[in-house]
């Protein structure tokens, strides 16, 4: 049904089965590039409503993991399930996004030829079908939603600006905004505070903690202060597998983690 769908319509919305309280199952996933193992038999389970921080050395495979979850990269082996019932590996990127998995990229990627507003409009949680969007109009609710998000990301004044003209940090915010309007169940956030000032970092932290509970959030970040301020459970990746997992304090005192990641006096 999914593989050969008639090219006119979108996937029927599957009911997400959360009966076992876990929303994401990553089991035994391996990815290799030209023989180099970016992910190596990785296992990761995330509960619904959790705010999970993912840390690990540069090149540990964090972004690659997100690529796998969002359907961008096909793993060599393993399983990835969304809830009990949805096998993400059998889905296309678009399907996965429609299931409610949103992503913020490490390098900000916004639509430079579109205004900030249009960027948000396109990201709205809505029917993504062709016919629908040919005639779609913004509803009042959607308008409010966008306004709300604009004020969160501080780009009200730039709403009509082309996204291409934003500065690096502004693009970061816009991308967070795009994630927010799409109202996802699971948010994958790759390095949200890179290039932000301390103040902005704090605001981002607030934002993310606010989101958790209702939604599930996975954050990748190297800014330890930031991680400390939001983290409940932290998973440390190393060379494509989980090196350690636990609370921030547990992880911070882990000898291996200090050795390969934090450095002596972090």
């Amino acid at each position, binding site marked *: 049904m999914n593989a050969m769908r008639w090219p006119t319509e979108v996937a029927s919305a599957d009911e997400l089965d959360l009966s076992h309280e876990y929303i994401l199952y990553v089991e035994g996933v391996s990815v290799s590039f030209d023989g180099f193992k970016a992910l190596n038999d990785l296992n990761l389970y995330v509960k619904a409503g959790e705010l999970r921080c993912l840390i*690990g050395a*540069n090149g*540990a495979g964090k972004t690659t993991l997100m690529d796998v979850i969002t359907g961008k990269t096909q793993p060599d082996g393993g399983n990835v399930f969304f809830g009990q019932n949805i096998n993400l590996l059998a889905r296309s990127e678009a399907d996965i996004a429609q299931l409610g998995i949103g992503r913020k990229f490490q390098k900000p990627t916004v639509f430079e030829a579109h205004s900030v507003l249009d960027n948000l409009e396109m990201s709205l949680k809505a029917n993504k079908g062709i016919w629908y969007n040919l005639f779609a109009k913004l509803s009042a609710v959607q308008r409010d939603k966008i306004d709300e998000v604009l004020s969160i990301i501080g780009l009200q004044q730039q709403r009509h600006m082309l996204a291409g003209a*934003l500065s690096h940090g*502004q693009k970061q915010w816009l991308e967070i905004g795009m994630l927010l309007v799409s109202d996802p169940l699971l948010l994958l956030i790759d*390095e949200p505070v890179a290039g932000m*000032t*301390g103040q*902005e970092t704090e605001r981002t932290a607030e934002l993310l903690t606010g989101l958790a509970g209702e939604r599930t959030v996975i954050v990748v970040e*190297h800014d330890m202060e930031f991680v400390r301020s939001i983290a409940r459970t932290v998973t440390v990746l190393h060379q494509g597998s989980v090196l350690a997992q636990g609370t921030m304090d547990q992880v911070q005192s882990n000898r291996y983690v200090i050795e390969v990641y934090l450095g002596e006096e972090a």
Partner: protein
Amino acid sequence: MITFQQVNQLYGGTQILWNLDLEIRKGSCTCIMGRNGVGKTTLLKCLMGLLPVAAGEICLGDTVLNKVSAEQRPYLGIGYVPQGREIFPMLTVEENLRLGLPVRQDKARQIPDKIFELFPVLGDMLKRRGGDLSGGQQQQLAIGRALVMEPTVLILDEPNEGIQPNIVRQIGDVILKLNETEGLTVILVEQKLGFARRVGKEFRLMEKGRVVASDTMDKLSDQLIKQHLAV
């Protein structure tokens, strides 16, 4: 050593830098700070000749840089680590590094070992395409690439973006070492106060395309931070 005098810059019809004045002392490590979008990157691009200056003068020592083409500026000893890394994605790590060799004074034909001592991961990944590296690895490559040119002035635009903590420390150490023991002039754009305080000797605060405060790092007060860096 480097001076900006009344520099104005425009994107199309949009003015970003407004009569900007700035002075960087030789041998110092100067931190340029400011909120997102105030024009830090723009300023550095003007310095590198990648953006045209509408009015004003930029000098390196006695040389008026405005008249020097962008390609010539590295030969004056300026090394640049841009924001967003700007790795040559389809070149291997080695090739990325080699590109800096012709600029060196000593015309060395080999990539100096020093680079690999500073960033061992680059040595492991010599044959990998630059574009395939992880974000943090790319950042290290970008710094390494600038260092291959043996610059006298090193410009870094948010070098710690996306770098794992122990490497951030390391980069800090490297910058300090280059600045203190080798006398390299460093211009650093940095958002993270901690890091800025640790490696920076001086600071320049920017607001809306102007430099609004400059002093030595120990003078960076909470008041100033609140005024110019808070959102």
